């Protein structure tokens, strides 16, 4: 039974096929990088898996349970957490309230406060706990959003370009944080990323998408020397 599997996903937008029979099975926990040239279907795959759009065909299963077309808030309760490419935080809430939001929704805010403060401290945002999220820099907002998903105690994490727009100093904090969280709770991280240096050093396995399908998967080293991948990127 795969921890995470998509089978034969098809999604068409008008005449364009964003996904055409995309299949991917991941059995073991780990940090997986999902890369591919623009238009490869990464974002559509993300949207289908996270319940934002329904596929025209195919299925998504988590721990053997079919979740195709399940709405986002139910997926969150099933243990699938995600961040957004465009970086989303609640700008009017304080940083602490941003983290406490998920526990409040689930009705178990009582014990969550200490964990929230600990996570904020891990990304050097503890002294911003009572500041509104709108006062943070873009990179800090990315960190805040990322820290927020761990308050859901997820079993599968989908991170959509976590490094985009983050300056090098914060990138190190971000990278270290993801590594640290994986050590603490080894679950399945699926990371879409364009920053090759970042993802190649973080992921244990890289999945390459091209033209709506999985083109190849393998260790970062193997992917970097694969002629098929090279051809997909350079056309």
């Amino acid at each position: 039974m795969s921890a995470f599997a998509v089978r034969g996903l098809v999604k068409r937008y008008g005449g364009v096929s964003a996904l055409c029979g995309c299949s991917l099975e991941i059995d073991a926990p780990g940090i997986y990088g999902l890369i591919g040239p623009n238009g490869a279907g990464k974002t559509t795959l993300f949207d289908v898996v996270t319940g934002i759009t329904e596929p025209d065909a195919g299925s998504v299963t988590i721990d053997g349970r079919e979740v195709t077309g399940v709405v986002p808030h139910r997926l969150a309760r099933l243990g699938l957490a995600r961040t957004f490419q465009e970086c989303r935080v609640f700008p009017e809430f304080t940083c602490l309230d941003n983290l406490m939001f998920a526990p409040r929704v689930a009705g178990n805010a009582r014990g969550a406060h200490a964990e929230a403060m600990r996570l904020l401290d891990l990304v050097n945002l503890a002294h911003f706990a009572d500041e509104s999220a709108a006062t943070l820099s873009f990179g800090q907002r990315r960190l805040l959003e990322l820290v927020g998903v761990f308050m859901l105690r997820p079993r599968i994490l989908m991170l959509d370009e976590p490094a985009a727009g983050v300056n090098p100093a914060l990138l190190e904090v971000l990278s270290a944080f993801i590594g640290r969280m994986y050590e603490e709770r080894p679950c399945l991280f699926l990371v879409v990323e364009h920053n090759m240096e970042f993802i190649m050093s973080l992921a244990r396995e890289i999945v390459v998408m091209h033209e709506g399908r999985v083109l190849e998967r393998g260790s970062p080293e193997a992917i970097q020397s694969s002629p098929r991948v090279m051809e997909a990127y350079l056309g």
Partner: protein
Amino acid sequence: MLKLAAAAVLVLLLFAVPTLAAEEPYLIHVLVLCCLYAIPAVGLNLMLGYTGLVSLGHMGFAGIGAYTAAVLMVDAGLGFWGALAAGLFAAAAAGAAIGAVCLRFRSHFFMIVTLAFGLMLYAVMNNWDDVTRGAAGFPGIPRPGPLGPLSFASLQNFYYLALSAALVAFLVQWRVVRSDFGRILMALRQDERLSQSRGVNAMFYKTAVFALGSALAGLGGVLHVSFLRVAAPPTFSFAESINIVLVVIVGGAGALAGPALGAAVYVGLPEYLRVAAEWRLVLFGVLLVLLMRFAPRGIAGLVADGWQRLLRRSP
């Protein structure tokens, strides 16, 4: 703490108005009107101000409450308090049912659909002669029956009732805003998709706040027709729905005191100063533009900023 004390003093002052200004029944009349607008405005503030749902048919739900209570009191001979409860329930149920339809749409599409439902509800009130008495209005609605030794027949006592009801509405709003439920509503206004990804069933909460807002509209509606002794469709027209939106925005959407400030300035002042009816609209057009430009957070925002400045000046 200071804010709480100020609010308490204000409430006490408002309760003392009939004794302080015993020779001015018109002032009390105007204050009753303010309460009657502030109550549905609190309901709309929860929807518009906190959740970001701009409903253009809000007074239609006040009408559902009002006409339900009117029919039960006049045709079925039910007492005021039972009819009030039924009116509240009917408005909430209609809010949940119609809200569930409207909430399938977002932003301006949502606004248009609520506008359409508001017009439909108005058309029903205006034309269903057998039940609502149609455009002629529904006469003979009694004032609230006595509660123990307290009778609400006099203007002064009705004012106490309207003020208490408004107070209840504001307490409900205060409770909601400070609860986890209120926090979820505010999260939905800021970013619905993010809220969903953190486990919020957006449709459920938006429908719930639509029902709650409509119940408060119903409370205002029942009291309104009981005050006027007649239910007439114009009280719940599209123009009134727009007025209640303006009460919320002028007062300060998403501020606890917003509906009270809005009702006082938008309903109370012009009524009391008797600005000629036509000029009132011109004046408010200008006021609204100025407010949007210089105080987008409404009067409540102006007051809050002034308060902050005052605090900073006196260390």
